[in-house]
């Protein structure tokens, strides 16, 4: 039981940044802007958040700096792919490199710690919050440990990530903004005919994407850790992209996909080199590669079919 609770706790911690980035990608891709720059925006956000928190000592200012930088990078992506009708994949790749390069360069120039930011004190971070009654019900079997270890004791950004799942669903499927956002991702010409600006709808989607990426980065650098470390996103942006495809671009499914991938990485950490029944020692690398392998299998159409938004990756031109 304890092992399982620990495993699930690590699962949630690994899933939160994935979930935020995945929802970020959801807004962008649903509007027809393919985004492989999630990784870079998260990294930029993580660096900005940690740098600002280190200088001001405020976690909130850090969070806003993270969001600001990630949105800025998003707007570069938007400018390239919406206004200039450039190749969205190329632009995403560029964002990843620019963010990684700038974070390393500025990190070294400002703090001279080999690209790290200074260690943050607890008030400059988002620290775990104990929910009410945690003490009181900790002794109840089953419910107690689950409430105390899993539900309580996460940080604010983690709760935000899970709250964003129903909100994203509601925004996309129950509001006018969401309807337009999905429409420009499926059939921009129809939206244009209705007299609604395709570019503006897409820009707004891209900004939403930047906000969530910034929060995802802040969760890593001033939530989970106490500072920025070079390349700290470590491919999470791409796992989030995989989760997005795995979830077939749907918010609730995205949460489950991120929890699944989080669970895989929890297993990888927990059972490193441990002999298991029947299978023996599972190589860590297999567990690391599993999210990617599963996504390839899914994309190949062997577990259902992942159909992306119809106008994804195609710049919209009014006239030919």
């Amino acid at each position, binding site marked *: 039981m304890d092992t399982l609770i620990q495993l699930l706790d690590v699962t949630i911690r690994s899933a939160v940044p994935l979930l935020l980035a995945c929802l970020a990608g959801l807004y962008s891709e649903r509007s027809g802007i393919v985004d492989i720059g999630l990784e870079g925006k998260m990294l930029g956000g993580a660096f900005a958040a940690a740098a600002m928190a280190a200088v001001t000592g405020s976690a909130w200012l850090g969070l806003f700096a993270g969001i600001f930088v990630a949105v800025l990078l998003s707007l570069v992506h938007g400018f390239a792919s919406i206004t200039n009708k450039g190749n969205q994949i190329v632009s995403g790749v*560029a964002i990843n490199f620019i963010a*990684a390069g700038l974070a390393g360069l500025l990190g070294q120039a400002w703090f001279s710690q080999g690209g790290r930011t200074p260690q943050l004190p607890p008030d400059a971070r988002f620290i775990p919050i104990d929910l009410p009654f945690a003490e009181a019900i900790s002794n109840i079997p089953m419910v107690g440990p689950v409430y105390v270890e899993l539900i309580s004791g996460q940080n604010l950004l983690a709760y935000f990530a899970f709250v964003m799942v129903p909100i994203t669903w509601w925004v996309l499927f129950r509001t006018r903004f969401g309807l337009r956002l999905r429409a420009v991702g499926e059939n921009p010409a129809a939206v244009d005919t209705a007299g609604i600006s395709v570019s503006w709808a897409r820009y707004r989607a891209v900004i939403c994407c930047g906000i969530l990426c910034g929060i995802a980065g802040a969760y890593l650098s001033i939530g989970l850790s106490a500072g920025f470390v070079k390349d700290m996103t470590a491919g999470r942006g791409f796992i989030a992209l995989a989760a997005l495809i795995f979830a077939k671009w749907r918010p609730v499914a995205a949460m489950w996909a991120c929890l699944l991938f989080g669970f895989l990485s929890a297993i990888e950490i927990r059972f490193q080199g441990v002999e298991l029944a029947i299978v023996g020692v599972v190589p860590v690398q297999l567990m690391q590669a599993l999210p990617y392998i599963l996504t390839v299998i899914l994309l190949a159409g062997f577990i259902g079919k992942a159909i992306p938004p119809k106008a994804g990756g195609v710049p919209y031109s009014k006239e030919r």
Partner: protein
Amino acid sequence: MNTALPRWVDYGLMPLINVAVAFLIAGLVVLFVGESPVEAAYLMVRGAFGNGYNIGFTLFFATTFVFTGLAVAVAFHAGLFNIGGEGQAYIGGLGVALVCLSFDTILPWWLTFPLAIIGAALFGALWAYVPAILQAKRGSHIVITTIMFNFIASALMVYLLAGPLQKAANLGPRTRDFEAGGQIPKMDWLFSPFGIDMGASPLNISFLLALIMAFVVWVIVWRTRFGYEMRTLGVSPRAANYAGMPEVRIVVLTMMLSGALAGMMALNPVMGDQARLQLDFVEGAGFVGIAVALMGRSHPAGIVPAAILFGALYQGGAELAFDMPNITRDMIVMIQGLVILFAGAMEYMFRPALTKVFSEKTITAEAA
């Protein structure tokens, strides 16, 4: 929009403007960090070309980037974006290492080398084959699958290098050193007629192979039936389909050629320099290939100079980081990103203005 620009503008001036903007922004960042951009540029050029040893290193890096740049370019011509050069090169290294580990004690290098070329190309091509066949037959997006395959390759190689292929646990994740039969000759003689000594720089004969491959790619893309089909598919899949060109075969073969070129990149560091297979030897070269291909406009004649520019950036950047500790090699990564942004994603930003300038010129020329 379809106003044709003179070729020298399209293939010469535009890339130059794009790169100039990228460098301008990099210069501003250097200024922002509190160093002198002019000084930084000087140190970088000196670090890349200052003496024979540095030139050797610049060309060594350039060799790698010619291979990965060609790999990306070949796929571009068929309208495919192979972002998996990194993984294909990594697995290509496995091919090189298996050949070298098997034959380095029994064959001389000039027999191992051709076998290693085949090994590298074959393994790289196979790693590109799966995403290609999934794209062609099942419609899975090649960008996503090749990204996934990069990560899978990385996990696989960590497993192999820290497991079955590892020499000894205390030496870290790498194979044993290759014997003389698994090492290819250096090219320190290249500039000796001019009195330039390259010293112990790692430039080796895979540089020549890279130039040969650039020519081979030109022949395949512009002088064969397959190249014609490939370019047709890239420009208009419907036209290719209408003309009865076999789409599945073109996609698969193009991607395998692309993967083979990326895989051959491994010959340079693995056989030419380190003489062993070690963790992360690709060091992002697969991604530099994207920048090189975009800057070189996917033409071998553009890719070779673009690769040399990036070789100079990598070598000069390393020297610069040494002289100006405030400016780390991360700046090169940023410049690479900026080049990809301006030469790739925003390539049309300056086009309307250029079209205006040059079409006006032709009008005045005609009037006169």
